[in-house]
């Protein structure tokens, strides 16, 4: 395997490149986001107060709430939206929302994706291949 290339299940959406925002935490658009101001609004979330706009979110699993399925499209049209989503495990709602909004999504990686990618890394997604490439690792120094 090429270094810095990781595979999950075949995903949804078109190839996209962007900066990762990563946390070992879970995700629901309704529960966790202030969709007007574009940041994480749940105090207990590890990304609390951080902007998700134009970031590739890398999180653990999808959590409750069906509203996300509609919200992604609305968020995309308003341009207050993440660029893409990588999860260890999506649920049907996330997949349905991604399909409806044409938001790139990949899940079910070989190992914990939140431990592989770091916030600030520049990554490229190829959802139809289930492939993620880390282009520019953020310096840890």
């Amino acid at each position, binding site marked *: 395997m090429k270094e810095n290339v990781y595979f999950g299940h*075949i995903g949804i959406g078109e190839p996209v490149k962007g900066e990762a925002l990563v946390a070992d935490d879970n995700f629901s658009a309704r529960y966790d986001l202030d969709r007007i101001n574009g940041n994480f609004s749940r105090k207990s979330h590890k990304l609390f107060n951080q902007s998700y706009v134009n970031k590739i979110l890398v999180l653990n699993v999808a959590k409750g709430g069906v*509203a996300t399925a509609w919200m992604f499209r609305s968020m995309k049209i*308003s341009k207050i939206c993440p660029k893409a989503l990588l999860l260890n495990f999506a649920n*049907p709602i996330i997949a*349905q929302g991604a399909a409806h909004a044409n938001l790139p999504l990949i899940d079910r990686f070989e190992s914990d994706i939140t431990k592989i990618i770091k916030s600030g890394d520049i990554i490229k997604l190829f959802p139809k291949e289930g492939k993620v490439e880390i282009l520019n690792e953020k310096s840890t120094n």
Partner: protein
Amino acid sequence: MKLSHKELEIQSGQFGEVRKLALEHQMQVGKFFDAQSFVEISQVHIMADTEALGLAGIEYLENLAQYPDPQKQVWVPTITDPRGSDFKSFKKIKQNKRFVDLEKRAIDAFKQLNVMMTDTCINYQVFMPPVKGEHLAFGDTGSSIYANSVLGARTNFEGGPSALAASLTGRTPMYGLHIEQNRIPNKFFNFNVRPTNFSDWGALGGIIGKQMNSYWDIPIIYGIDYKPTSDELKHFGAAMASFGSTPMFHIAGVTPEDHLAQNKNPKMNNISLSDLNNFYKSYLPKDDNLDVVVFAAPQLSLNEMRILSELLDGKKIHPKVSLLVCTPSAVKVLCDKNGISKKIENSGGIILEGVCFYNMHAREIGEANGWKRLMSNSAKIINILGGYGYETILNSMEKCVISACQGKIVK
């Protein structure tokens, strides 16, 4: 995916563009979850409150509504989850009229698709309760987990776009909870504590939900030594689905598919009274300030409305606190008929019908009313509204009523 003759016809556009696009959406989701085929469904429950829809979602519905009836009208009975505005009461809670106007547009569009506006998340208690083995497309985590767990019906969480697609094609991709293999429990819990009220059931659902690693974890619970009521299991499931994205649970000796537990020597997780107490404590604030008490999520059944009305009978809500109750319109009619509404309203409580508080643009309503501290007996709403700028407190219905009347949090 292998398509039937009918599905190939839909795909070819024989039944119009709307159904063709709906099937394509479903195939995209089906492929993501490795579905090999579709399964026909008997009914659809669709979540599409205006907060979730946004203007983009409403315009999407309005666009569908422009097609000729044979192309756009649903093929299977389709009912709705709670709406985002109560046209009779929105002023009482200072809901901005622009949300009400959006709501009217969404309802108009749905009616043109021949969707029945039932506006409830407890459809399984009020309309067309599913039966064991029935395949569905249910679009509320609470209604889905109840249908799978308590009734033995089969549905995945179907978000609005997918539920709508299912109503237009009469089928859904065959994956997840439609397949028996995925309904087998793989997490095992033993209750060393006896829940005594709805909030206990919700808290226990939340405790389990937090321990589920993904949608694919299915818990079974042992140690329940009595037959819980529909309302108790409603709170249990709604909280579990909310905290964990969990689509199904089993309770040994209670739910219809508990026989699917095949592991004879499982690793058991014990849930004790201290676990329950710690869950409540995790939501306790440092002071006793209180702004609003909300009974919702799930909407209250007729019996919950009756219990609440008896607790409020002859009492007055403290002037600095508001008390809101959400129930389906169909239940509200019966509450009016049976004197239940009068008791709640005489105390100063506000009944909101056909809505649920958290999907009414709760952030903006909170800001308009100056509400920050919110108390409820629903573990689900306590969980959700934490992300909406509220400080939330969980307690029993009795303690919530006492607190509302005293104007402060009573533990």
